[in-house]
């Protein structure tokens, strides 16, 4: 056995390497420049998020979900409270649904801009990355004016949101919608038909539709392989039934296809935000005070008996939500794929078990399969196209 493998050498890639972007380690077996075997070693960022979920209540835990996929924290907030509200059986107000769609789609744009930007960066296209990052700053500005935080938003609450949107923010979003298509066209002109980029990306890391489904892959990675699955269409949650948008798919299944799918999803997300912001329903954002799930505003607390009772019930220790003793799985289409939470309620306002189904974890399990047979320089191309976020991978 040793004589057979004498010519192979082992390369340690990571855990600290600029092209992993985060902390993950690969042990590569190389034959010259060709990768024969790759063994991912993960867990460097494991921080016990699921254990913490058994000790924080349904509103507190949203701050932890921010730190999972920190490239699009808003999408995680929406996913977490989607599962919680499914467990509690809460029907949101129309305005809240629309606002959650808007923030989730802005998060998707921000995630895809970073992902395609980093894909370009890893294969040597630095300008492209800066174009993407400039626009992400605008999204951070929108989130800052929306909820006060740029990065770790924690915007959703059980049965509603932290607070309503203001006309200033609406105007900011409209501005953003007006300017992003021009930048996107610039970005596409820079890279989509660029010969060097295409040669680096096409035919690298090919995944077939059958393999994608069998390996549990979802989101843009699966859609680039021709799987037409998108939870926004297949299991319409929030208000996605109201909007006109398309699911972007390609058949090639290589790194270039994943790049194209993400670029087109940005355009579709823009369409959704545009429709949502122009048709934003009037009315309250939070469910009513008599539902006893969301903290009522101060005017209600001081002037109505229901508001006062609800405030008291939710704030006092050993009181809080009444949760059924049952279990649900709620999933949404996060930028990276299906982000689900499996919740076990035990009657108290703290989850008995808060399992997160992280798309990065499922996608990274693919990596050895995709990279074997390609060269060392393709490692970063494949890694970039899968958009692995280690904080979500390790939780």
């Amino acid at each position, binding site marked *: 056995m040793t004589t057979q493998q004498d010519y192979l050498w082992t390369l340690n890639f990571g855990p600290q390497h600029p092209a992993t972007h985060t902390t993950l380690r690969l042990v590569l077996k190389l034959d010259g420049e060709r990768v024969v075997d790759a063994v991912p070693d993960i867990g460097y960022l494991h921080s016990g998020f699921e254990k913490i979920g058994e000790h924080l209540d349904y509103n507190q835990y949203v701050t932890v979900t921010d730190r999972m996929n920190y490239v699009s924290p808003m999408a995680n907030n929406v996913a977490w409270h989607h599962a919680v509200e499914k467990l509690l059986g809460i029907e949101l107000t129309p305005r809240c649904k629309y606002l959650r769609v808007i923030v989730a789609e802005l998060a998707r744009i921000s995630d895809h801009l970073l992902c395609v930007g980093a894909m370009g960066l890893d294969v040597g296209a630095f300008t492209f990355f800066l174009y993407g990052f400039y626009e992400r700053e605008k999204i951070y500005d929108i989130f800052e004016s929306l909820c006060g935080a740029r990065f770790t938003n924690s915007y959703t609450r059980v049965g509603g949101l932290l607070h309503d949107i203001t006309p200033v923010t609406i105007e900011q979003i409209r501005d953003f919608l007006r300017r992003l298509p021009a930048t996107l066209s610039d970005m596409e002109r820079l890279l989509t038909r660029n010969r060097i980029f295409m040669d680096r990306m096409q035919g690298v890391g090919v995944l077939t539709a059958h393999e994608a489904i069998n390996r549990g892959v979802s989101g843009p990675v699966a859609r680039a392989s021709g799987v037409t699955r998108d939870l926004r269409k297949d299991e319409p949650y929030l208000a996605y039934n109201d909007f006109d948008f398309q699911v972007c798919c390609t058949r090639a299944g290589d790194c270039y296809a994943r790049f194209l799918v993400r670029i087109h999803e940005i355009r579709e997300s823009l369409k959704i935000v545009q429709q949502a912001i122009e048709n934003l329903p009037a009315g309250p954002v939070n469910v009513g005070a008599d539902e006893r799930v969301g903290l009522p505003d101060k005017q209600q607390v001081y002037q109505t008996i229901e508001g006062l009772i609800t405030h008291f019930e939710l704030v006092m220790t050993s009181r809080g939500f009444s949760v059924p003793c*049952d279990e649900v799985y709620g999933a949404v289409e996060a930028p990276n794929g299906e982000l689900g939470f499996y919740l076990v309620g035990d009657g108290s306002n703290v989850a008995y078990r808060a399992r997160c189904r992280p798309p990065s974890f499922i996608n990274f399990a693919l990596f050895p399969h995709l990279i074997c047979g390609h060269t060392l320089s393709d490692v970063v191309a494949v890694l970039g196209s899968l958009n692995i976020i280690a904080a979500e991978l390790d939780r």
Partner: protein
Amino acid sequence: MRVDRLEADPTLSDGGAIVDVLQKVTDALRQRCAGVTFSVFRQDTRVWVPRESLYEVLRFLQQEWGFDMLVDITCVDYLHYRGATDRFGMVYQLCNTGDNVRLTVRVMLNEPDLTIPSVTSLWEAANWLEREVFDMFGIRFECHPDLRRILLPPEFTAHPLRKDYPLQGRGERHNFTALTREGG
């Protein structure tokens, strides 16, 4: 709440079609395997399966009923759960991407025999998911190709998502052996 017939949710436009498929699947499962029970909560259909027929049921669902995607495998430790009779509950989230149907398969496990068959031969996705359950709960999967810890270091001895493991750990961080330049 254990049920015999599934009810369509009138608020969903295509809820009828999905419930039809689920009804057929559950009927077929009942005929095929003794001891399966069903329940529905918030439109999630769950199937409780005896441990010895788990692999057979999952294989049947994948090959005869088109459940081609394994969405998630996880485990729940019911140590402190009110009214629970079993210690561990495994959760398999299946999805039929053709008919857009989801099904949850549950199986209960008790100490000291915490082994169940691995489903890696049916779905590749099970590989890392089962490793994570092994790492966090100590459930052993028979015939798994590579059953090692995945998130925690190999020298770790406990299974931290069990309910008898404290939130702040058992001093692993403080008792970690530190290497010094002199000591080597």
